[in-house]
């Protein structure tokens, strides 16, 4: 509304007040001025008519006795009427008989005919009022009087009116301003105060603020009361929420501490178990070897085979323990992330793997320029395991092909290791990453079943995910994100 949209309610109220009173005043003034001008015009016509009548009746004898000088003397009495510009007495046939000019001009004027049945005619034209009247003496038309008046009086009056109206307007607007300011104190002030409080509350999130009630039992007061009540409810809810949150936090901390303690205990336990298990194993292996070497002549072939089996089993158990320790180390090792060229890392791992299997012909397809922020040591473990697994499960293939690259999957990028090896039953895809989970016989593909568990642990600690796709004898793909 009139560009006051952004102003406060107090300003709006004041503006509305001023506009209303101003409009009312302007209309009232206009009506008064119009009324006065109309009646003033009427009185001007009336006065001019009287002057015309007087000039006319005083010109009867000059007209009848052909004495223009006497008529002009009569007309010159009009000098007292300052607004009369010119006047003229005309004979019945329209010839000028006597004239009067206020400003000394002396132009012939031709009066219009007075219509039959009328004695007088007047009109406003060119800022002048003109009046023509027939002079009647003893019931007989004797001549014509033509008189013209300027509207100076009317202009003066209008100017005076405009001045008065302007003063009244200014005074009234000042009064309206005064009233508006009082009104503002009563109505707008509480609302403005409420708005300020609301702004502070929402800006500072300080729900302890309260708006001051007016104490007048009016709508603004109700509004303020409701607002304060709302703030109180928010505060109550806040404190309840904080309490619940604090309790939860405490619970979580307690649980976390418990969990950490039991985890530590478990890790220490498994470490010590693994570590301590190695000593007796070494004993068994060592003494089995001693038995084989020192008492070979006293053992028959079957005894030697048994001893060989004992040794193989012991060594396998040693490997198992190593892997378990590895897994536990991976779990505890601190992660140091840096930008690693995954392509180069994969090449170097592939080289090592290929060296350990010189009899195999394996084709590695490694995508170039793969980089990521990871822990290089842990990442090497991941690639060793995944590429090693791929080599292991393609051992039955005449030509093994192992790919490492990056792909887009579900809207995010994921790295993958694909092989064309033995694959797996998709039904077990989720169980692949559990420790000691094996889907092939040890004789078929050697391994401890710890590798993928370790890989998963590392990927999880990097905040990524790992999953696998595959089918029996159709190869396998391992995807992981970082």
């Amino acid at each position, binding site marked *: 509304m009139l560009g006051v949209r952004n102003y406060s309610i107090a300003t709006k109220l004041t503006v509305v007040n001023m506009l209303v009173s101003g409009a009312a005043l302007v209309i009232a003034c206009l009506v008064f001025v119009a009324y006065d001008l109309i009646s003033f015009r009427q009185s001007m016509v009336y006065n001019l008519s009287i002057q015309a009548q007087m000039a006319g009746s*005083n010109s*009867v*004898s*000059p007209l*009848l*006795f*052909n*004495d223009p000088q*006497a008529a002009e003397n009569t007309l010159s009495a009009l000098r007292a009427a300052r607004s009369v510009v010119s006047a003229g007495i005309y004979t019945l*046939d329209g*010839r000028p008989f006597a004239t009067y000019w206020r400003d000394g001009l002396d132009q012939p004027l031709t009066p219009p005919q007075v219509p039959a049945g009328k004695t007088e005619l007047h009109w406003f034209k060119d800022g002048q009022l003109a009046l023509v009247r027939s002079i009647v*003496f*003893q019931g007989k038309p004797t001549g014509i009087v033509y008189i013209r008046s300027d509207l100076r009086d009317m202009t003066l009056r209008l100017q005076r009116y405009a001045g008065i109206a302007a003063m009244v307007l200014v005074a009234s607007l000042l009064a309206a301003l005064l009233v508006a300011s009082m009104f503002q104190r009563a109505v707008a002030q509480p609302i403005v105060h409420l708005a300020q409080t609301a702004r502070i509350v929402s800006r500072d999130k300080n729900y302890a603020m309260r708006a001051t009630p007016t104490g007048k039992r009016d709508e603004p007061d109700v509004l303020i009361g409701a607002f304060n009540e709302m703030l109180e409810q928010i505060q109550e809810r806040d404190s309840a929420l904080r309490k619940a949150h604090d309790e939860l936090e405490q619970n979580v901390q307690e649980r976390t501490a418990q969990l950490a303690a039991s985890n530590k205990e478990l890790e220490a336990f498994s470490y010590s178990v693994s570590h301590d298990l190695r000593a007796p194993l070494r004993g068994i292996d060592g003494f089995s070897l001693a038995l084989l070497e020192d008492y070979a002549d006293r053992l028959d072939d079957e005894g030697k085979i048994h001893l060989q089996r004992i040794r193989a089993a012991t060594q396998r158990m040693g490997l198992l323990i190593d892997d378990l320790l590895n897994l536990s180390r991976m779990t505890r090792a601190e992660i140091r992330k840096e930008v690693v060229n995954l392509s180069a890392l994969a090449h170097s791992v592939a080289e090592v793997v290929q060296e350990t299997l010189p009899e195999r012909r394996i084709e590695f397809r490694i995508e170039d320029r793969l980089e990521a922020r990871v822990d290089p040591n842990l990442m090497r473990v991941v690639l060793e395991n995944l590429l090693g697994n791929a080599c292991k499960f393609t051992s039955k293939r005449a030509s093994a092909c192992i790919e490492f690259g990056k792909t887009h999957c579900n809207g995010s990028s994921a790295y993958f290791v694909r092989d064309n090896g033995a694959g797996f039953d998709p039904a077990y895809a989720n169980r692949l990453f559990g420790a000691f989970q094996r889907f092939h016989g040890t004789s078929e593909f050697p391994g401890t079943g710890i590798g993928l568990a370790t890989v998963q642990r590392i990927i999880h600690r990097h905040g990524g995910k790992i999953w696998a796709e595959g089918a029996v004898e159709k190869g396998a793909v391992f995807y992981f994100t970082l």
Partner: protein
Amino acid sequence: MTARHIRAITVGVAWILFIASCLRAQQSNPTEYQVKAAYLYNFGRFVEWPAKTASAGDLFSICVLGDDPFGVTLDKTIAGENINGKKAVVKRIARPQDAVHCHILFISSTEESRLKEILAALDGTSVLTVSDIPQFTRRGGMIQFVMEANRVRFEVNLTTAERDGLTLSSQLLKVAVNVRRSPQPGG
């Protein structure tokens, strides 16, 4: 529009202007006695007669004593006119005694020689006397026509008129060329 057309129109306009100016001249220059006849009639409209004269009869008589210089002009002027609610008539009289019932008496200049006798005959009556005779107002007449700059004007002897009970309107006196207030002794 050819030059011939323009010339024809110019000649036509010139003729119209000429005829109009002739008519105007005729209108604006009435003869001396036409003016005087109108004045006689108008005197009747600006003068009040005493009640006894005013109520007597229902005719307003304008009399001409002596040779009538007006001819039909006076009759034409007052034909059908009323003065003070009475029908105006013209009477031509020969004897001063006949003038006592007149409202206005125009004394022809042919009567100058017996003016004193005429005025004496009207003594005590309320007859407005008007004449061309020089020194008329000095010699006991009431209104005397005078020529001034080729215009007909008049002098008034107010004392004489008032003595005979006539009231002359100030409007009339306003346009008189001269208003005498006291008669010449023995005039």
